[in-house]
């Protein structure tokens, strides 16, 4: 019959398409990269254009410890996802928790740095162009870390309730892409703000 061409046939090679989660997450990451690019461009464009102090050289210190924590959380989330894929839910929970702890330490580090800048150095968003661009760029990154931590916490609650199963490993992996992206952005922000900009 004529409907032959439209009905599925059992023969032929297997029809495999890219995973929805990965494609969707990579698209989101592309969009987020464009947002960060604009903020980084604004930061670099306004370097040294502030009409009053303080300047980055006066007030910024390298957040080495927080950076090490955030970057190593990429490794721990990778280990967590691998554990889940191997059906070791306990190990997954442990590495997932470590990831959350490392992310939280980073966020606390940013908070302490901002407190120091605001109360001891008198730098706010409205002080000068450096303040505006610095708080926007670092704040946008911290916002992304916060969103990531909330999602990690949610998954951790599900883990503790025993709802996370090995078949969820692809979802955990898709989320880990976001977390790796947040880390890569920090490498860029760190380079621009604390190395080139100082």
């Amino acid at each position, binding site marked *: *019959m004529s409907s032959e061409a*439209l009905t599925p046939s059992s023969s032929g090679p297997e029809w495999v398409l890219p995973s*929805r989660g990965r494609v969707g997450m990579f698209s989101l990451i592309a*969009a987020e990269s*464009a947002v960060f690019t604009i*903020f980084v461009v*604004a930061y670099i464009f306004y370097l040294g*254009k502030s009409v009053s102090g303080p300047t980055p050289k006066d007030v910024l210190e390298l957040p080495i410890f927080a950076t090490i924590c955030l970057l190593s959380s990429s490794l721990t989330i990778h280990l967590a996802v691998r554990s889940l894929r191997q059906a070791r839910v306990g190990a997954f929970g442990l590495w997932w928790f470590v990831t959350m702890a490392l992310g939280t330490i980073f966020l606390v580090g940013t908070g302490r740095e901002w407190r120091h800048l605001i109360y001891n150095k008198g730098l706010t968003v409205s002080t000068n162009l450096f303040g*505006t661009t610095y708080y*926007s760029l670092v704040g946008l990154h911290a916002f992304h870390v916060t969103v990531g931590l909330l999602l990690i916490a949610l998954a951790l609650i599900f883990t503790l309730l025993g709802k996370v199963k090995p078949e969820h490993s692809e979802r955990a992996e898709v989320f880990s892409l976001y977390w790796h992206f947040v880390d890569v952005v920090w490498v860029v922000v760190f380079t621009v703000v604390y190395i080139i900009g100082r």
Partner: protein
Amino acid sequence: MSSEAIAFTTVGQDTRPISERLHDWIVTVDHKKLGILYILYGLVFLVLGGIEATIMRIQLIVPHNHFVSPQVFNRMFTMHGTTMIFFVVMPLLFGFGTYLIPLMIGARDMAFPRLNAFSFWMTAFGGVLLYFSFIGGYGLYGAGNAPDVGWFAYAPLTARAFSPGHSTDFWTLALLISGIGSIGTAVNFITTILSMRCPGMTLGKMPLLAWLNLIMGGMVILALSPLTAAQIMLSIDRYLGGHFFDTQAGGSAVLWMHFFWIFGHPEVYILVVPAFAFVSEIIPVFSRKPIFGYPIMVAATICIGFISFSVWAHHMFTVGMSSYGNTFFTVTSMIIAVPTGIKIFNWLGTMWGGKIQFKAPMLFCVGFLFQFLIAGLTGIMLATSPFDWQLGNSYFVVAHFHYVIVGAILFTIFGAFYYWFPKMSGRMYSEALAKWHFWLFFIGFHLTFDFMHIPGILGMPRRIYTYEPGRGWEIWNLIVTIGVLFQIFGVLAFLGNPLWSFWKGELGGNDPWDAWTLEWSTTSPPPDYDFAVTPVVRSRRPLWDRKHPDDPDWKYE
């Protein structure tokens, strides 16, 4: 043999109370319902934006007119521009994309149905927020209501000192929110097209509509994000006392221009690429020939996608860039005409030797071909930076971009509306009323926008609320406003057609155009699950294969 396979089927009437059926529409995650919601929403805002345009044209019909105050005029052109771009054309294009992409690629729904609903309601909320400014924008200052900073909202006009009250914040937040919705839709389009195709539909066998929407999705992701970032910066300036665009503290007003136009120019192509997609589906069916140069069409669109990100500063020739900047952006703006020209020749090649049927969808597409050509030619004139220094910010520019957005994009949207209306509603529209719509709108369009070029060449700047007599502008402004009258009647005929169809339209059947893509193989309107059996395709025209098993396409592709 062929008609039997595409049997005449209808879906059973829904007999539940109206409140329950409305509730279905509010909570739906179905791509067909959301697509129709997008389209209805775009049509409501089309009327609103049209009323604003009419108010402006009445004000400009004679010199020294007092129809509206200068303040109201500023609000009208700001709201008109913002509405038409973000809350008319984008929702209409997204609506057709949301409705058609899963049907055309043989999928059950979009990749992320809930994200789809979220994106629609974000866009809808953005539009409502923008219009709420008419009653809510007074804020604490009693200064102005609707936004009045122009649709590209140049700094430092948007600074707190020059835009007190909340009118500008309504503009900023409405665009920020609808921008997030647009990015969500783009993510969904890309994922659906890459991950949800039915068996056999390789990338090279996808309908061009899916291909072009895939490219459009990529452009939305890269172009809407800078706008979102710039709106965040503007909000930081206005609410946290930041200095991004504050020239007194060392900030740069030109940086806003760059950030806006690096969104703004790709945006034009974001709007026109789906319009190309409609034309690429409609012209072959009404010429009874497959599309000419399918791979070249895809390649040309990808070229347009890339080049469109390197032309933005041709909006800024009059700002005063370096000669290298002017040269670069002149050259890129001219280069982008090449792939666009290739596409026009491909459509002409499709029509060449075909048995052309001038039904309403085809009429609008043929109108598109000519008008888009002229829009492109004035675009090349304006891309020449010395010419732009002469005519930048004049009515010549206004006429040029309306030629693109109305003459090209809106015409194809009308064509797409008539082409897919039988699929969406199950009923035929009135061909006679559609022809009235076409001719009234066609005459109105040409009266308005052909003659709008001339006061521009005579030196009439855009965005002035009135003008002196005796400069030779009067007659042209009069003709332009008369054209609006024709367009209004055209749009009334357009809006009347679905109503006519609701009461009098005959059932269209599954495949009224004898078309070749998968959406015509299911019922009209399609069932919730789209396809009872997942289709398998072997060529770019699966329904042709099915109707002509003796001479299928896949033997030659």
